[in-house]
């Protein structure tokens, strides 16, 4: 059992981070903190992907004097995927923060409960 956990330590760490972010995003009433939790979830995914690409004893996929010997380099695909993920995560965070700023401008609060109350009042 311990061996199993040690073998997958990065996967387990990223699962714990992911669920921390997910639970926070569901349960925290503050909109800004929801966005921070979303970023934690993103980082967990990146950790997972990057750890999947690692192969012990090999170097980063930048060809040096040895040429294109496949057994000398780690998997380059997760690195590319993480790059894409980071860009998308930055864009989504920027967009949602702008939305939150507008919500604050309109309602004067970023608290979920107060927002629900205010929206209900507006609907009447």
């Amino acid at each position, binding site marked *: 059992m311990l061996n199993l956990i040690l073998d997958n330590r990065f996967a387990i760490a990223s699962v714990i981070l992911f669920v921390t972010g997910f639970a926070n995003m569901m349960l925290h009433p503050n909109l800004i903190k929801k966005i921070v939790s979303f970023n934690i979830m993103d980082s967990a995914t990146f950790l997972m992907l990057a750890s999947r690409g*690692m192969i012990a004893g090999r170097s980063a996929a930048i060809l040096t004097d040895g040429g294109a010997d496949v057994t000398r380099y780690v998997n*380059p695909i997760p690195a*590319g995927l993480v790059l894409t993920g980071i860009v998308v995560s930055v*864009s989504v965070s920027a967009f949602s923060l702008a939305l939150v700023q507008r919500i604050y401008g309109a309602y004067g609060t970023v608290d979920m409960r107060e927002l*629900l109350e205010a929206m209900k009042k507006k609907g009447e």
Partner: protein
Amino acid sequence: MSAFTNWVDGEHPVPLKTEFKPTPVKKPAKKRASLGDERRLDGFLRLYARCGVVISVMLLIVLLIGAVALPAFAAPGNPTDNEVVHRYVGSAEEETGAENVIAGMILNYRGFDTFGESCVLFLAVCCVMLLLWATNDRLRAEARACEKTAPRDAILATNAKMILPCVLCFGMCVLFNGHVSPGGGFSGGSILGAALILFAVAFGSDAVRRFFTAKVFNTVRITGLLIYASMFGVYIYQGANGIDSNLARYIVLVIDIAVGLVVMSTMYGFYSFYTKGEL
């Protein structure tokens, strides 16, 4: 420099108001919702919290079972170490002309993916502009006036003068060497964007506006995307994998620079719209 020595000697007047504060939103007088509504909302939130906890715990259990069942970390011969990787590492240099396999991969083999990524950045900055552009003249005048009256921080300005050239050189180096060493368009562009932001913080956005106006901003990011699209079009039209290694290397470099321009203007755009509501 004299401002700096004055500051160290404690003779510099302490600024009272240096940050931009938007006019506070008038909160409507709090009218309690009727008791029934309040109770219904309380009930809903309690149910929501309970469901959230249950779903999170279930998700944790399912994902943990999955994580433990994965093949061991960093072992050679994992299922992820397959023929796709061998193909990319083995022939990236002759097919894309880039020693940095990751740069070659994301700009050639997966060029469409990266093009979509640049479009996502472009769209994100468009959305932020749409949401945060200060259309209110009074608000904009207020922000500008506040920026004019705020004294420049002597420590920051002195340090920025020393650091900025290094940051710019480093950013250029990362951007232009993206195909042979770690780096590339995204990292180089972010460093250049950070340099622009530092410049704006240290010397005021009027100093940035001397060379980076809204017009230049739009031109740079649209041109970057167009260069990317046309270069990738050339690459596909020339027969993709079959083309000469030197031409491929040139295409990778130009695409990298185009991506760097898009990322740089996007980063500065985010900063500028969040702090001032305009460029």
